[in-house]
């Protein structure tokens, strides 16, 4: 077995047993990146030298004996919206093409503290705005299952890198589906964490009331291990909650007594039949493990797309005001400061970012605030209440991640509304701030992966991980490997 085919937990076990060194494991991943990534474009920056130095330090620490941290010597990669001190951090944008992060994001620092080796920074839609990674200023990432298709987005580089065995795990971010949907499209596991569960310090902000950081990996147990390392309170993010991180062990495949909500609004006309069949079969499989499916209704589901595409762009228009050619990034030269702002932003932001800044600015502007932004915030309350009421009757909710499998590069990028509708099943949980897991649950006729979405109440990650683990360990979908 080649080293890059190991799961994260298998690799950690072998490192502990001394069966291989972190240097060997890290070099194997760097070799594979050099061989495979020119076809995928998953990495924007490969930090090979630092990674090998971290690996050697990890090996030395292990040789010295004593207690070792859980990720010691494990090679991972990071979405390029998270700061890593001394490393270029672009957010997929030309407006940050030469930005070198002066500090490290808390989530990344916690991985480093746990002993992880960082292989580099991963491609994404510009400022995490998109569902296909086609909005990256550095070219699209390609889906390892079919190089003509998108990997999903915005954490497309993270999902593609994990699926293609370029890293044992990765961090992504999810504002409206950006961990779950690429995980689904690339056939890997992705966890959207509860809002407030993982510190956002050092994350380049997009939609501040929605942004969350979460792991992508090849198994649920791997994702759970990464989650347990990055979760928890951080005084540097006032929205990070002082909630205890649950123990993630002792799971069984017995789901007796588990009530699984099946929301009727998540099986709609126009979705790809293979997706509906695979997700319904997965729910049937949970039943064979002892769970009881219960049909439920989340009546405000259809309003999630318009609510999200007002709230997130409104927050983005404020967050991205800081990119003005003064403090970082290249500056467009002009004689007056106002012209510097307008030219720098006009020349350096990509089409989708400008579109969302325009939409958000409009929604917040005088005369339209109540009708658009204010109304969206009220309907958001109704969407959240739908979930609150559902979780009085069920323990988890099972549904599709996306209405389709991975689509061809170039087919939706000129039609923003069609692209926004890709997010129809991932936006409601984001607006409610609850955790969601994408687990591989099938393929369509073209062999493209399909994801099962498992949702839990706020701070109920343990529950969705436990159910996802039981499903995964009794099925084989997660073992499928793209031929590259």
């Amino acid at each position, binding site marked *: 077995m080649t080293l890059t085919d190991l799961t994260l937990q298998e690799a950690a076990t072998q490192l502990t047993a001394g069966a291989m060194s972190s240097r060997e494991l890290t070099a194997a991943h760097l070799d594979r990146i050099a061989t495979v990534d020119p076809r995928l474009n998953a990495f924007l920056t490969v930090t090979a030298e630092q990674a090998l130095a971290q690996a050697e330090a990890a090996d030395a620490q292990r040789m010295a004996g004593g207690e070792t941290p859980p990720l010691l010597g494990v090679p991972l990669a990071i979405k390029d919206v998270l700061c890593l001190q001394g490393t270029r951090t672009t957010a997929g944008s030309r407006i940050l093409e*030469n*930005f*070198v992060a*002066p*500090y490290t994001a808390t989530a990344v620092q916690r991985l480093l503290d746990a002993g992880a080796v960082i292989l580099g920074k991963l491609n994404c839609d510009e400022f995490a705005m998109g569902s296909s990674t086609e909005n990256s200023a550095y070219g699209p990432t390609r889906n390892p299952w079919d190089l003509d298709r998108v990997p999903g987005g915005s954490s497309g580089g993270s999902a593609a890198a994990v699926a293609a065995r370029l890293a044992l795990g990765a961090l992504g971010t999810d504002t409206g589906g950006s961990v779950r949907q690429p995980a689904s499209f690339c056939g890997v596991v992705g966890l959207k964490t509860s*809002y407030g569960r993982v510190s956002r310090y050092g994350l380049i902000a997009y939609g501040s*009331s929605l942004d969350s950081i979460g792991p992508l990996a090849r198994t649920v147990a791997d994702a759970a291990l990464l989650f347990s390392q990055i979760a928890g309170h951080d*005084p540097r993010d006032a*929205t990070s*909650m002082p909630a205890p991180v649950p123990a993630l062990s002792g799971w069984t495949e017995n789901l007796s007594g588990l009530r699984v909500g099946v929301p009727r609004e998540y099986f709609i006309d126009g979705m790809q039949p293979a997706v509906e069949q695979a997700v319904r079969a997965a729910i049937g499989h949970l039943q064979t493990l002892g769970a009881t499916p219960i049909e439920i209704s989340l009546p405000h589901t259809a*309003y999630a797309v*318009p*609510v999200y595409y*007002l709230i997130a762009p409104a927050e983005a228009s404020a967050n991205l005001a800081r990119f*003005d050619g*003064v*403090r*970082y*990034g*290249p*500056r467009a030269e*002009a*004689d*007056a*400061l*106002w012209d*510097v*702002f*307008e*030219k720098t*932003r*006009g*020349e350096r932001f990509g*089409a989708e970012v*400008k*579109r969302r*800044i*325009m*939409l958000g*600015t*409009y929604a917040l*502007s005088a005369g339209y605030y109540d009708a*658009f932004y*204010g*109304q*969206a*915030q*009220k*309907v*958001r*309350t*109704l969407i*959240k209440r739908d979930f609150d009421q559902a979780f009085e009757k069920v323990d988890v909710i099972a549904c599709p991640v996306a209405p389709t499998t991975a689509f061809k590069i170039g087919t939706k990028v000129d039609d*923003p*509304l069609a692209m*926004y509708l890709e997010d129809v099943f991932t936006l409601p949980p984001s*607006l*409610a*701030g609850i955790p969601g897991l994408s687990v591989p649950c099938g393929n369509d006729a073209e062999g493209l992966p399909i994801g099962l979405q498992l949702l839990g109440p*706020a701070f109920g990650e343990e529950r969705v991980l436990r159910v996802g683990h039981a499903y995964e360990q009794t099925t084989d979908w997660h073992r499928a490997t793209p031929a590259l």
Partner: protein
Amino acid sequence: MSLSREEIDHIAALARLRLTEAEKDLYRGQLSAVLDYIAKLSEVDTTPIPPTATVLPLRTVLRPDVVRPSLPVPELLRNAPDAADDMFRVPPVLDGGAEGG
């Protein structure tokens, strides 16, 4: 709803975005279509419903009011396109300014 060319100009000015004529035409059409779709929100009766600004329980987060070290100034200026004397340097803000600084 259809956005007018003047509205596009106004929004771009508020957002400090210099757009080309082609971009203005493109965004006018695309944003009008998105706003048409978004208009379905007005179907929902939200009269008694409070807005959600955050999904977290509302709380005030306090920390001790003590001086802590910040990131070193040279580190922060390293990414700036232009800097001098521990400051970001920009062109004149007001008309008639002869010197930048």
